[in-house]
């Protein structure tokens, strides 16, 4: 009997976790619509948006530039090791560009964005909630979702695709530096093969679409966790951690789904 009770407890805990997860997903969805409905002021007053783009985008620029450059350089070095065995080092441009544009650009830029800007958004909104700044706005008859949440959300949605593009560009340049300048592959072959192999619609546009989807996901997670945080110091720090973890999982899961739909042609 005791054993059965333990099994029942175990299933019950799964049930509770599932129900909580679904409830939170429901809240997040409703929150998303609340943001969309309250987005008027964000676009009527670009000053709010510009300030938040500065915080979300410009302040993430350095880490994205550096990571992009290094990841491109590493891709070129590792790619060379493999390609040289098949005598196909000219394909390095293709390798670097396709890896970055299709996968690494959107995904790694998304992960960096979540940990740099997303966590900051959560902490900021959570802190405003803890110190009753959001309640103060509410009492002043100013909707905190319109004034605080929506500008941050849209700034994230705008910033991440740009960061992902910058990341890919820097990565390709990093690959060029290592492949052409350091190892000595023919520069013409590097760019030429890349241009033949990379399709602007199937590869570049799909990469951009990925980054836009990630941008919506990460920004929503970040502002939701902040707004939903328990208004205490521990609550805010827990929410910040949740933002990074949930965002990372969301990016990787969405990436898989999107890849299946976008690049099915390569599988069949």
């Amino acid at each position, binding site marked *: 009997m005791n054993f059965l009770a333990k099994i029942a407890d175990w299933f019950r805990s799964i049930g509770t976790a599932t129900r909580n997860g679904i409830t939170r997903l429901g809240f997040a969805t409703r929150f998303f619509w609340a943001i969309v409905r309250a987005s008027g002021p964000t676009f009527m007053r670009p000053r709010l948006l510009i300030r938040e783009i500065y915080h979300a985008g410009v302040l993430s620029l350095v880490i994205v530039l550096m990571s992009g450059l290094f990841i491109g350089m590493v891709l070129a070095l590792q790619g060379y090791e493999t390609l040289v065995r098949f005598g196909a080092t000219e394909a390095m441009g293709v390798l670097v560009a396709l890896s970055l544009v299709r996968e690494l650009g959107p995904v790694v830029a998304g992960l960096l964005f979540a940990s740099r800007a997303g966590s900051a958004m959560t902490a900021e909104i959570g*802190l*405003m909630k803890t110190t*009753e*700044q959001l*309640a*103060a706005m509410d*009492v*002043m008859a100013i909707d905190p979702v319109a*004034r605080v949440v929506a500008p941050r959300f849209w700034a994230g949605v705008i910033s991440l695709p740009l960061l992902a593009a910058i990341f890919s560009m820097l990565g390709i340049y990093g690959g060029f530096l290592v492949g052409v300048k350091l190892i000595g592959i023919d520069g013409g072959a590097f760019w030429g093969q890349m241009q033949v192999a990379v399709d602007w619609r199937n590869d570049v546009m799909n990469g951009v679409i990925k980054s836009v989807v990630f941008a919506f996901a990460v920004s929503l997670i970040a502002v939701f966790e902040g707004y939903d945080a328990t208004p205490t110091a521990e609550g805010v720090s827990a929410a910040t951690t949740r933002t990074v973890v949930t965002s990372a999982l969301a990016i990787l899961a969405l990436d898989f789904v999107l890849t299946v739909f976008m690049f099915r042609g390569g599988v069949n």
Partner: protein
Amino acid sequence: MHSASSNERNFASTPQPTDASAHIELREVSFGYTPERQILSGVNLTVPRGKLVAVMGGSGCGKTTILRLLCGQHVASSGQVLVEGKDVAHMSRDELFAHRRKLGMLFQFGALFTDMSVFENIAFPMREHTDLPEAVIRDLVLLKLNAVGLRGAAQLRPSELSGGMARRVALARTIALDPSLVLYDEPFAGLDPISLSVVGQMIRKLNDALGMTSILVTHDIAESLKIVDYIYFISEGRVVAEGDVESIKASTDPFVKQFVNGEPDGPVRFHYPAVALEEAFR
């Protein structure tokens, strides 16, 4: 002491539903986040226009909840919360916003916007709710800051202010749009004696000079007795005593006496409910 005084400032001895001068009126208001745990149960409270009223009680007795009900952030589970005769619970979205625009609230720790300067904090409600030209806003902000003696601090960040200064800036922001009703949530919490006295005097002066109605939620009995017109005592979700300053000071009510004199034991028990000591150590 209940309703016995003939003092002319004793205006709320019995709640008069048709009292024309009542700005705020709570009738039999109950509230709880869950049905099992009631925070307020059957509270009656009246605040006439232009008066400064204190709502006092121990920590966690539901004082702040009354303020949240008044500004429409919570809705009473039963009873009426009337502002100028209109029930806050039944206001439309537009009416609620109009009500909030005429209302100022000073939060416990000021709730200044940390990403704006002092100047921008006070300009914030003006910018959001009016189309005043920049020059007019500037003059108004400096006037408000001057009223709290902090015109020189206009360009500081909230993080650069002391606790007392932050509270005064928050006060200036609260009255930025000349509200007709101001709610103070623990305005004296965590202040040194000088700042405390300054803020207290300021609340009284603003109330008289601007003709506002003020509700002061606090547990600082000494400072309140110096400035307010009338006091309500709340314990365990209900009004247990009320009266003007003189009658409170002269009161023989055990709860009021315990609260005014700060006695550790009395109607409010020192011990959390537990089994008898002899039982516990047997």
